[in-house]
């Protein structure tokens, strides 16, 4: 990777070994938790070039190339643990694939469990893996945003993530400035503030 291109957003996705991945669909209320966590993490902290912070959406098997390329993998997601809404859970190591598949909140988890097993089959599996999960409250609100219960857990979820990253000796620095052009993890229109401000009235939604 030519050094003069390090500022290009793509550069951060072509050469790294630690993947911080938010998965879920921002259009489905609490399903968007994982993506909102990495969005906030990216806003608050700076990382070394060996770290890739990624909005994985609901890409399923198409996330396999990135999972295989990572030595350390930290995932944020909404998981049905059967606990009170908003409850956070940190899962580490071998338990992660199991938790991704026990009770599926949504389809992307079936897909992601398969990503993990395909990575195992391919012989390229991260040395370290951790999952920060939240118990969702509401999913059936297409076009909606996170519920207040789940939204207020983003901060604590990042706290758990920092513990994991410290253990992995991944350097992380608090940002003192706001994000520059091209530094966001997704399009501006989907960033949580713009997304919520532009939220159209849900007339006719539901049955």
């Amino acid at each position, binding site marked *: *990777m*030519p050094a*003069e*291109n390090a*500022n*290009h*957003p*793509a550069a951060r*996705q*072509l050469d790294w070994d630690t993947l911080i991945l938010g998965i879920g*669909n*921002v*259009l*489905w209320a609490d399903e968007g938790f994982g993506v909102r966590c990495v969005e906030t993490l990216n806003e608050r902290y700076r990382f070394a070039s060996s770290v890739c912070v*990624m*909005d*994985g*959406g*609901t*890409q*399923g*098997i*198409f*996330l*396999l*190339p*990135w999972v*295989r*390329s990572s030595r350390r993998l930290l995932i944020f997601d909404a998981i049905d643990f059967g606990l009170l809404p908003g409850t956070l859970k940190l899962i580490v190591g071998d338990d992660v694939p199991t938790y991704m598949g026990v009770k*599926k909140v*949504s*389809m*992307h988890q*079936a*897909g992601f469990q*398969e990503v993990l*097993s*395909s990575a*195992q*089959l*391919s*012989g390229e599996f991260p040395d370290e893996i951790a999952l920060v999960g939240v118990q969702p409250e509401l999913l059936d609100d*297409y*076009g909606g945003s996170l519920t207040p219960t789940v939204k207020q857990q983003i901060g604590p979820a990042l706290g758990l993530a920092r513990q994991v990253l410290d253990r992995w000796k991944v350097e992380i620095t608090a940002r003192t400035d706001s994000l520059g052009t*091209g530094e966001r*993890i*997704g*399009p*501006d*229109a*989907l960033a949580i503030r713009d997304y919520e401000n*532009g939220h*159209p*009235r*849900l*007339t*006719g*939604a*539901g*049955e």
Partner: protein
Amino acid sequence: MSKTVTANGFALDDAGQRIVVDPICRIEGHLRIEVNVDENNTIRNAVSTGNMWRGLEIILKGRDPRDAWAFTERICGVCTGVHALASCRAVEDALDIEIPRNANSIRNLMMLAQYTQDHLVHFYHLHALDWVDVVSALKADPVATSALQQSLSPWPKSSPGYFRDVQNRIRRFVESGQLGPFANAYWGSPAYKLPPEANLMAVTHYLEALDFQKEIVKIHTIFGGRNPHPNWLVGGMPCSINVNETGAVGAINMAWLNQVSDIINKSITFVDQVYIPDLKAIASFYKDWTYGGGLSGKNVMAYGEFPAIANNYTNESWMLPNGAILNGDLSTVHDVDPRDPEQVREFVTHSWYEYPDPDAGLHPWDGVTEPRFELGPNAKGTKTNIEALDEGAKYSWLKAPRWRGHAMEVGPLARYLVAYARGQEDIKMQVDGLLSDLGLPITALFSTLGRTAARGLECSWAAHKMRTVFDDMMANIKAGDVATANMQKWEPDTWPDDTKGVGFGEAPRGALGHWIHIRDTKIANYQAVVPTTWNASPRDPEGNIGAYEAALLGTPMADPEQPLEILRTIHSFDPCLACATHVISPDGQELARVKIR
């Protein structure tokens, strides 16, 4: 009903046992299939229902049209770029924005890379296991597998030792009990016809395709700035290009362009030396499995894709042409105009929506999305636990799109039939070559395997086309044109008060259209008609059945509790990814759990 013949000529009989295959899936193509089989377990009635309501229109209403692409990218878990592209085209059409030549080339490259990747992933990871028996591969002789491989292509990974290593790797994986991607299949079923060596070769290439996927996604990362949701821009592409040694920081430079060029070469080699030989080898063992044709021998449609000339979305420009074929008459190809209110119309007679005039069809610009969920009088179960649908009433969250009133099949086979019928030389050569290698007539294409074969040929076509498009783009850049975006009409004060646009093209899965109505600089209405809606469509007021329903008819099932045959045919359309499905018996008891991916 009991026995009837549909308006589009298919005999239906719902007297026999009802089998329900219900994927639970929250991304695009959330699909449930119900069939009736006769006393010989042959499918005599088929019901396809999409059981999720998306309401994209409601999310987009009132938003800035320049942002629509970002939202549409998220409506489907897997086809991100294709929606972004259709959305940009729709807005550009509405606002009369012309994109620069390089932007057109980059969009073509992104889409061609998407075709190549999607088709490969579909074949090896989503569809091959309907034909390839992983457990049988463990019994293969690596020496014989090596000989088989070397007889098929010059692909270098072909030694007996290599196949032995892979076989051991798979054995360890299977013996550890973690079947992973190989779970939920019907290993050992008599419906699998390949000898162990062909199975081992195909499973080996399954793993190689996973490796290859790591390469090809870099094209999207480089041109889209990020992945798996690349950046798009109304008016062009949001990347700058600098082929000089010095200059703008943050531009795509020569080193990256060389990397793209290298990936294109690798793609061509992999597809031509691995995918195509595998396709032929597998097909040669299934020549007698001629089922699944459905609408493909009657009505197919393509909007056209890959404009050779920027901003020209007509057959003068499309590298894969636009057209519709009716009643299997390959001698006449009709032009398809997504703007014409008489051509593309959606019906909701059998869909869970309400129109002012219940049996009328609406053009997407006038589209209405008012949900009305109700079960018909002959449905079994409750609204929250449907045991069997009543296809005589409303039964799907998908609308029924029709072209001039006809149900149409869309997708790679439709595109290839349209191009073939239009006499396009590159496509004709590919198709005739494959048919002559396999000793099959053109009518063999009208089948599940024909659909699968067309996708493979198109993957090769797309990989080679990346080379031409890339070389053209480089020549243009080197001639001094580096423009990638046209921002003249970026500001809303340059827009008309009230305007409509359509963005159409071909996603890997088939014809895709986005229709937008912009009023006072905001989105007033937005309708997307996606490939799955065409193919998985419910019936219309005339009783015409859609492509999925038609394709399943007449297929004999070895064992209705193991619906491998249904999966083969449905998978051949490339429905959405990773839908876990349940097979439910008529009394609601779970019979088996299968994967429809």
